[in-house]
């Protein structure tokens, strides 16, 4: 039963690849959506009794994958509270994205290929979160990388898309390399790569802060930052917008970028044993959420705003993981999946309506033309900027903001970063909303309303973005802990320095106040006084800053200079293989000697006589010299 959840998407992908053009579009849609839908249904069928029974996990052994010496890895699946949360989001949100895609991609020539890749993507991600050992997890991990490559470069005719696709694959592969080394080290020290065994034995093998476990945790973190697009490997995600919009929704909400969060949460015991690495997680999260927030503020492409906002929101999740607020991170993952999928698909609806225009400055006034898209997008935007009380984003983010300060590993710096991030989030989100839906229409295109296949997923996700928050309410507001208490089977509860309702209120009010301030600033600058913003951004320093933020803090240029260009340049220089030159030189010398010697065989008698005489003279003189000495 459990194995069907990843098997169905894999199998349907295989059917689509093999079937190719034999299927009609309807059949392709049915196979693609149906398999994910059934997987989602199985998740519910399996998950509800599982949650009620209170068992810690369901394990299914399929077959032995590789076994050599004392190493063994099986195709083994394990469902527990943590993976169930992920499986639920992947299948459920994935299903909605698939349904939406049948509308979005309806006119694309490569309909079958698209859905084959999408199903493969979902399957790989499910394998990743259900894997019982790290090798199988790595299987899913790399599979996700492959599918992102295939889908980002889906419109392969444009070389820029191919570049973005390769960048995504290669940059995440850099992180994967670190992770692979972590696997080698874990095997060396624990003798196994089974996740439960590692988690169980790690505290016996290593004391807290042991250098080896710190190194392992940092290497795992390297893998996590690659997939989750965190500093310093975040550069691939903004470019990943080259793919079709449903792909972005899938990458950002249900699959791929949350893999890093999953990995850190899954291996939480190791990070607890390595405080330095856990601090690293928190610092990376805090810094990333601020840097990405700034970049999101100045983008002109609606999808790039959302991309940077994902990096920033994953930064929140990393921050939560770093301060030991494990379940808060997973909670934010769930709510983020809902509202980010909603926002991307809303943006996709806008883009289609605008005839594939993605520049927000060429939009405007769409509120009237696309009311349904506007309202659902607004709900998503409200959730992303954490409008108090009515959005799920508020409840999940508020928890992180508060715990960033109040948990044992918390720090004022983290709290400041989180609350400043909340301000930035509100500002860039509503800048995007106002630019797109308010003001005067920038073009005279008539926007056409998307069909039901695109709108119904939006309605469902809008409902989820609002309601999902109520499973977990803070102390100050009802104190519901359905989600975190359930996750405590797998992830330890957060430990607080002190509980202070007054301080929590202060933090919440401050965050809420900053959110509204951010929205107000966006309103003033975009809708009321756009001239003011233009003048402000034309100041020399602001222009420089704007360019820096726009380019994502110039990381691309830096990496190009440091890694890409030296590699490409030396490769070009050595295209003809310098080692081969040595052998060529040997042949040249031989040929030269041959030339020189063959000249002596000239056939002219007097030269020969001359040679004999000279030789005799030399030999005689040597003899005489030897005798006389």
């Amino acid at each position, binding site marked *: 039963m459990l194995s069907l959840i990843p098997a169905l998407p894999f199998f349907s992908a295989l059917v689509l690849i093999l079937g190719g053009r034999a299927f009609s579009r309807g059949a392709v849609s049915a196979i693609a959506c149906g398999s994910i839908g059934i997987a989602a249904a199985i998740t519910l069928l399996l998950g509800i009794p599982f949650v009620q029974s209170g068992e810690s996990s369901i394990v299914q052994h399929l077959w032995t994958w*590789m076994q050599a010496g004392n190493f063994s890895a099986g195709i083994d699946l394990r469902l527990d509270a943590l993976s169930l949360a992920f499986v639920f989001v992947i299948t459920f949100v994935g299903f909605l994205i698939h349904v939406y895609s049948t509308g979005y991609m309806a006119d694309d020539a490569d309909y079958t290929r698209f859905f084959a890749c999408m199903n493969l993507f979902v399957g790989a991600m499910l394998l990743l979160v259900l894997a019982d050992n790290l090798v199988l997890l790595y299987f899913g991990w790399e599979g996700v990388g492959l599918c992102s490559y295939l889908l980002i*470069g889906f419109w392969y005719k444009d*070389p820029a898309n191919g570049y973005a696709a390769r960048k995504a694959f290669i940059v995440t592969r850099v992180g994967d390399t670190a992770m692979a080394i972590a696997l080698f080290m874990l095997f060396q020290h624990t003798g196994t790569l089974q996740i439960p065994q590692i988690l169980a034995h790690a505290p016996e093998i290593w004391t807290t802060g042991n250098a080896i476990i710190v190194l392992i945790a940092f290497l795992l973190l390297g893998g996590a930052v690659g997939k989750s697009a965190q500093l310093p490997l975040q550069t691939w995600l903004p470019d990943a917008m080259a793919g079709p919009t449903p792909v972005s929704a899938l990458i950002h909400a249900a699959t791929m970028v949350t893999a890093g969060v999953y990995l850190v949460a899954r291996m939480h015991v190791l990070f607890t044993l390595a405080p330095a690495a856990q601090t690293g997680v928190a610092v990376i999260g805090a810094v990333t959420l601020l840097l990405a927030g700034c970049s999101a503020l100045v983008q002109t492409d609606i999808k790039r705003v959302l991309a940077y906002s994902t990096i920033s929101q994953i930064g929140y999740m990393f921050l939560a993981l770093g301060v030991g607020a494990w379940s808060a991170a997973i909670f934010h993952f769930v709510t983020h999946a809902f509202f980010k999928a909603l926002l991307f698909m809303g943006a996709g609806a806008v883009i289609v309506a605008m005839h594939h225009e993605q520049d927000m400055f060429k939009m405007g006034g769409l509120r009237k033309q696309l009311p349904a898209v506007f309202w659902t997008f607004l709900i998503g935007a409200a959730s992303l900027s954490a409008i108090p009380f009515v959005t799920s984003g508020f409840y999940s983010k508020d928890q992180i903001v508060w715990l960033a300060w109040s948990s044992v590993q918390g720090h004022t710096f983290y709290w400041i970063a989180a609350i400043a991030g909340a301000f930035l989030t509100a500002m860039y989100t509503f800048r995007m909303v106002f630019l797109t839906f308010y003001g005067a229409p920038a073009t005279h295109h008539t926007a056409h309303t998307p069909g039901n296949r695109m709108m119904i997923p939006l309605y469902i996700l809008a409902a989820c973005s609002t309601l999902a928050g109520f499973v977990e309410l803070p102390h100050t507001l009802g104190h519901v802990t359905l989600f975190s208490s359930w996750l405590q089977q797998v992830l330890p509860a957060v430990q607080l320095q002190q509980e202070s309702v007054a301080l929590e209120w202060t933090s919440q009010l401050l965050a809420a106040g900053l959110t509204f301030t951010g929205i107000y600033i966006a309103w003033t600058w975009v809708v009321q006084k756009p001239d003011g913003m233009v003048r402000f951004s034309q100041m020399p320093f602001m222009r420089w800053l704007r360019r820096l933020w726009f380019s994502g803090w110039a990381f691309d240029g830096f990496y190009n200079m440091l890694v890409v260009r030296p590699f490409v340049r030396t490769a070009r220089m050595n295209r003809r293989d310098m080692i081969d030159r040595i052998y060529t030189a040997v042949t040249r010398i031989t040929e030269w000697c041959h030339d020189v010697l063959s000249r002596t065989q000239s056939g002219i008698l007097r030269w020969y006589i001359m040679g004999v005489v000279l030789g005799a003279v030399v030999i005689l003189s040597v003899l005489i010299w030897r005798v006389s000495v």
Partner: protein
Amino acid sequence: MVLLYIILIPMLGALLSWLLAARSTALCRWIALVSLLGSLALVAGIWVISAAGNVPPDRWLYNWQQPWIPHFGISLHLAVDGLSLVMLALTFLLGALSVLISWREITFRVGFFHFNLLFVIAGIAGVFLTMDLFLFYFFWEVMLIPMYFLIGIWGHERREYAAYKFFIFTQAGGLLMLLAILGLYFTHAANTGVYTFDYFYLLNTPMQRATAQWLMLGFLAAFMVKLPAIPFHTWLPDAHTEAPTAGSVILAGLLLKTGAYGILRFVLPLFPAVAQGFAPWAMLLGVAGILYGGQLAYSQPDLKRLIAYTSVSHMGFVLLGAFAFNELAYKGVVMQMIAHGISTGALFIIAGLLYERMHTRALARMGGLWTAMPAMGTVTMVFVMASLGLPGLGNFVAEFLILLGSWQASQVFTILATIGLVIATVYSLRIMQKVFFGQTERQYALPDLRLREWLIVTPLIAVILFLGVYPQPVIKTITNYELRITGPEATTSPDANNTRAAPVTDSLFVIK
């Protein structure tokens, strides 16, 4: 006897197809195909029997011996264990496919082509089977000369240069090996009074460290040229690029593997102590090959040359793993030999199919081919992904096991080799981008895969997928090999005397 048939059938097929080619080239092709499939069936039969028979580890499955020149201690001694078995299976699979791939490509001197092709394959099979060092050298040369003709006659523009280069490099290595074989022969005689070329006798020959060192270097010279290891790799890109498609497949898929096989079968068991001393250097060369070959692959403007350099990179893993001296790495090495044979062979086949259609190997003149040939694009994607080590395909299992094993031996080298995986991603994705993605300026249509071509690529895809998700049957089959190296048996020699005493029969499990 069955082992002898495995070698004789292709040799016989070679002669027949040469003789009958004058009458009908189709007949000649069919004879070649059938004879290779026949040998493949024999190998498969042995595999099935051995898998069913629950072979205890450290056993030889079949062993067959006939005196040949008893005066010098030379005998026809063939034996097969798990390692030989999987290599033989690979040999005849790729052999049969390379006949199929030449069906349209080779149009002149068809008979002589198949004669050479089958003789190379017979030679390779002999190398994997023989347990007599004199015979081994004989088969080593049998592989070489027909290959020289294959490149020199049916190759591309610079075929003669490439053929000479290939011949000189391999021959130089081979002669050094011959010296080492003779040295070992006389050292063994001096110490024990028995003149023999028999592998089982020569195992654990008592000798001085310096002698062992020189002899090992002699063997290594041949094997490292064949593998190829840096800095002896420069024959490879020329030979692979200029050879006809079948030649490239045989070169990359099989000939390189004889180098790896030689290291596993001869260098490590014959000279365990000095090999261990040499290990850091060998691993260094392996890692250098991985990184240097990878970077060179990235920069190549010629598709076949690019694929050729990826072989240098992938065979670096073999060298790294072979000298890691542990079981995980050995299994990884054997897996790598098979997986690389399949995946690189397939990539050369695809390059050949593209050449048939476009008459160019230049990447600059390709691009945007996905539109015309989505099926070929999908197939290529599978093997490109195999080449960059994507889990689920055979190469991942191989590289993962090698790295997991070599980590126990040397962490620095393993880290560098792991970085090689990133470079593999870079050059592999370049293939897809340059050939299938991007825009196209071509005006003419290209046909997608035809039936014969599907027949060629389907088994390759099936095998590489099978190796990726369920490699256990193969890993289990090769289990009996590394026990002999790493196990305590390796230090003493219980085999040697039994071998001679054993009756010369053709039955299972006679020889321990």
